[in-house]
């Protein structure tokens, strides 16, 4: 039985707000996390520079294109903070602390999405200075978007990809009701997402038939297509991408709600 889970927006906005406050509770943590994007940027630059030594094109992409592709995909991948929530929430289910979501008139899915997106917003704020530095001083290695429409399309696709990942992570978390320990499930999911989304290796480097098959899966549209759209490539795939990703999101939402209502019935809420 699938029913609307998220109805009252105010409580989820407040959940997002409190999650964001929780992120900035420790000053040193905020400081370290705001430096990390710069370190990652430097390391990525050094790595790809070494790989391109003596070559101007790899897999049909110039160094600038590859750097831009890499930065966009890794940026989008890092924006997904809901995978961290998987551990927290699965632990709450294992230890019986999940009960607090069940006894209050709040949807666990809505709470999960709100907390996940709040964390994403926080990461976005942390990454913003690095993006500004990149745009101001390293514009030669980060190509500008092919056009404003390309940028908007990439952002929309990236956002939908985030929602999909949030739902996928929520679904993985719900497995803790049944399996208690979901480490194996989570690792499997993480590795698959990393490979299938093209954040490990650009999908254009894979055989043609694999690339064709990927078009029916959501992962293709989560990082690879937004990065391509930004660079002005594969623009004809924007509309089909929206439809396919939209269908996956709808299906996953229904499945997540169904699995929660089914599995919460075997929850024991251990401990006092």
């Amino acid at each position, binding site marked *: 039985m699938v029913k609307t889970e998220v109805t*009252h927006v*105010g*409580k989820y*906005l*407040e*959940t997002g707000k*409190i999650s964001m*406050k*929780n992120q900035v*509770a*420790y000053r040193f943590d905020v400081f370290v996390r705001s430096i990390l994007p710069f370190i990652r940027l430097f390391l990525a630059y050094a790595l790809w520079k070494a790989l391109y030594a003596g070559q101007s094109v790899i897999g049909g992409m110039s160094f600038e294109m590859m750097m831009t592709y890499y930065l966009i995909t890794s940026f989008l991948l890092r924006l997904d903070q809901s995978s961290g929530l998987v551990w927290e929430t699965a632990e709450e289910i294992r230890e*019986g*602390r999940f*009960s*607090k979501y*069940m*006894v*209050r*008139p*709040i949807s666990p899915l809505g709470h999960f999405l709100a907390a996940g997106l709040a964390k994403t917003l926080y990461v976005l704020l942390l990454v913003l200075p690095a993006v500004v530095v990149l745009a101001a001083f390293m514009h030669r290695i980060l190509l500008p978007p092919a056009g404003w429409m390309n940028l908007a399309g990439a952002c929309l696709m990236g956002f939908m990809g985030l929602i999909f990942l949030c739902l996928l992570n929520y679904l993985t978390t719900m497995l803790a009701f049944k399996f208690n320990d979901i480490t194996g499930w989570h690792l499997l999911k993480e590795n698959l997402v990393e490979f299938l989304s093209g954040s490990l290796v650009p999908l254009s480097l894979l055989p043609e038939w694999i690339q064709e098959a990927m078009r029916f899966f959501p992962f293709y549209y989560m990082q690879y297509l937004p990065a391509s759209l930004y660079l002005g490539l594969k623009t004809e795939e924007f509309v089909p991408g929206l439809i396919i990703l939209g269908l996956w999101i709808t299906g996953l939402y229904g499945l997540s709600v169904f699995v929660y209502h089914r599995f919460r*019935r075997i*929850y*024991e*809420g251990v*401990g*006092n």
Partner: protein
Amino acid sequence: MAIIQARSLTKIYRRIKKQDGLKGAFKALFHREVVKKAALDSFDLEIDEGECIGLIGPNGAGKTTLVKLLCGIIQPTSGSCDVLGFTPGMLKNEFRRSFAVVMGQKSQLWWDLPASDTFALNREIYDIPEEVYRANMDYFSDLFQVKDLINVPVRNLSLGERMKMELIAALLHSPRVLFLDEPTIGLDAIAQKQIRQFLRQVNQERGVTILLTSHYMEDIRHLCKRTVVISSGKKIYDGPLDMLLDRFQEYRVIHVTFERETEPQLDAVEWVEKSPYKAVFRIRRDLVTPTLQEMLSLYDVDDIRIEEEDIGNVIERIYHGENGGDSCGQVS
């Protein structure tokens, strides 16, 4: 009229049993023995609006399981329950708005943030009108005298202060029913007393129906006129606490300290501890007065403390039908 009803409520947990050792651990990958344990067995209960009920019993008796069933956290194996006209397990939003639960060892507060943030979140979750929220905040923070602590991160509060915040968070939406599972566990005597007074006031002034589980007799004595004793998932007593204690609390534990080294000799006592300046003994209740009189006349006593018998012993006695078998007429 009863607002909480449980009829033949039964909850059976399935537990996996593993053999000892490394071999057992690997064997369990292929074959697992599942054992069933009834945490609650054909349990019947009715609670009227405005009542404050004490639920007592030893560890593993089924107290927390009953609370979880009535909150809808877990599902019954058989039987049924009804709280405020709702079936708890369905977790309807209207149902969840009408009750609150506080579990002594599980917090709803955000550890790194002040309690005020959790209160603000609950205001949205329960859709509490601003004026009701303000009035309740003033009422509860005055009652607990915690106005200065509301903006302090929860991690910096003492255990007692945290429990006060938990109770405020639970009561902000004016629930009709409050389930409390060991709310005073681990607290010092002063904090326990404050929480008892608070709950008493909430029950009497606001008419909130309370179901309280506790290991501390003082909690039950101070708050509840009616007590339900549960053991091995079954109800073994349901009635006034006074009658329960009169009938089944047969012994007292006496702590005596002496002004000088003493080797006390008393009849009809069971010594628990004896040292040069201190003696602890267990004695039948009807012998307390003559024994203490004798002790005061024979020895230089510095201080005396009389303790009630451990609740576990009392329950064990009821369960084994000592002191007149099924003498407790309220047992169902």
